[in-house]
């Protein structure tokens, strides 16, 4: 039996699941094509799109590689980088 500090089923510390491991290829935003419309950020199910210094980036830690951003980007600025299989 695994003991916890609790007397009934509760959880306090945040559970971290490395869903970044799920992806086959990483999606990457090509900054020269990016129109900064923010659609990728709005539609990313894992909230992996970040804005740094006004530019959009995909943080790959928890990105599962679903491809929604690639499919939805109106500027076709996001591509799976196939050479970089993880």
């Amino acid at each position: 039996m695994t003991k916890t500090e609790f007397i009934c089923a509760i959880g306090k510390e945040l559970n971290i699941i490395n869903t970044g491991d799920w992806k086959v290829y990483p999606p990457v935003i090509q900054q020269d094509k990016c129109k900064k419309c923010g659609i990728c950020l709005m539609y990313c199910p894992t909230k992996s799109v970040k804005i740094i210094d006004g530019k959009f980036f995909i943080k790959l830690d928890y990105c599962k590689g679903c491809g929604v951003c690639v499919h939805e980007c109106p500027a076709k600025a996001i591509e799976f980088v196939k050479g970089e299989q993880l």
Partner: protein
Amino acid sequence: MSNIRVLDGNHAAAIGAILAKPEIVAAYPITPQTPLVQHFSQYVADGVMDSTIIEPESEHSAMSVLTGASLAGARTFTATSSQGLALMYEPYFRVSTMRLPIVMNIVNREMISPQSVWGGPQDSLTIRDAGWIQIYVEDNQEILDMTIQAFKIAENKDVLLPINICYDGFYLSHMTEGVEVPMQEEVNSFLPKYIPTHVKLDPLTPMAVDPLTPGNYLQYYRELHMQAMDNAKRVIKEVNDEFAEKFGRNHFGLVEPYRMDDAEYVLVTLGSLTGSARVAVDLAREKGIKAGLIKIRALRPFPKDEVIELLKGRKAIGVIDRNISFGWHTGIVYQEIKSAISSLEAVPTVPFIGGLGGEDLTTELMVEALDKVMAVGESNQIENAAHWLINQKGR
């Protein structure tokens, strides 16, 4: 200081609960519990009672509302009967395993079919293993006193379990008798405010309640639950003693012995039927027969040690059950007693079943039961099949 009022069982329960000041009350009306809900509504409407009353659309929701409220930190109260309890089973089991000290009176009523609205503890006994504390009471004073004590037992930090105060429908719920009602200040000093520390849904202290839990953790929680049940035995007695000292009424904690000192022939009872069994014991004593009885008050946790201590060395034992364990052909309390005393040298025991569906268990029937116990004790024959107690007078 207290005052005597003339109350039916439901009214006594309502007043007991009101004195305990539950913050959230949610109950769905069902015969024979309905007047209890009506009393609450009226007391709130009259400004006498400062509880938030929620009128849920079912018993399932009644228990669910209380689950949420208790998780948020509220002291909570509800009541139900039979089919309502059955509908409530899903959240009922959950409340105990979440260790929420909810107090629920069960106004015991037969389970259908056939259609019946009358008294009998088949409803709550059937779900005795759902992790709640269950205490069965005999009269209206005990209803009121135990409804107050229930909160103190349930909320004890060594217990933290929900509790049922069970009383027979109609026999107690609709019986009117004199009841001593304690003063609010006295109850306040007996019963401190409930402050949960083990589980709480509050944005200031975020936590997950019931994450997906693998078996190795679940078993650990079950072990703690079992320990809490053991602790409850001690706490029920302590709360009883404190109550007795403060209010002058002793209800004997887990088991009440009656004329047991030198008793050879013993009846074991539960709930309101105890009264006529007491009379039968007195009548036997007048004839020089060493009769006695024990009233099981706490069915969960089951007072195994106390029962062994009280029943060892007796000549014969009869257990009166107003309920059935189908497939065992006895009542449920009988099985509990038999299990408890299995370590004792074999003593003849007789299972009795009667009083189902609101049939009276008259004094005459209790005399009949005691006669049977004596006969079995003398012949030293162990009976396995239940002896039915049939009330001819009512037919």
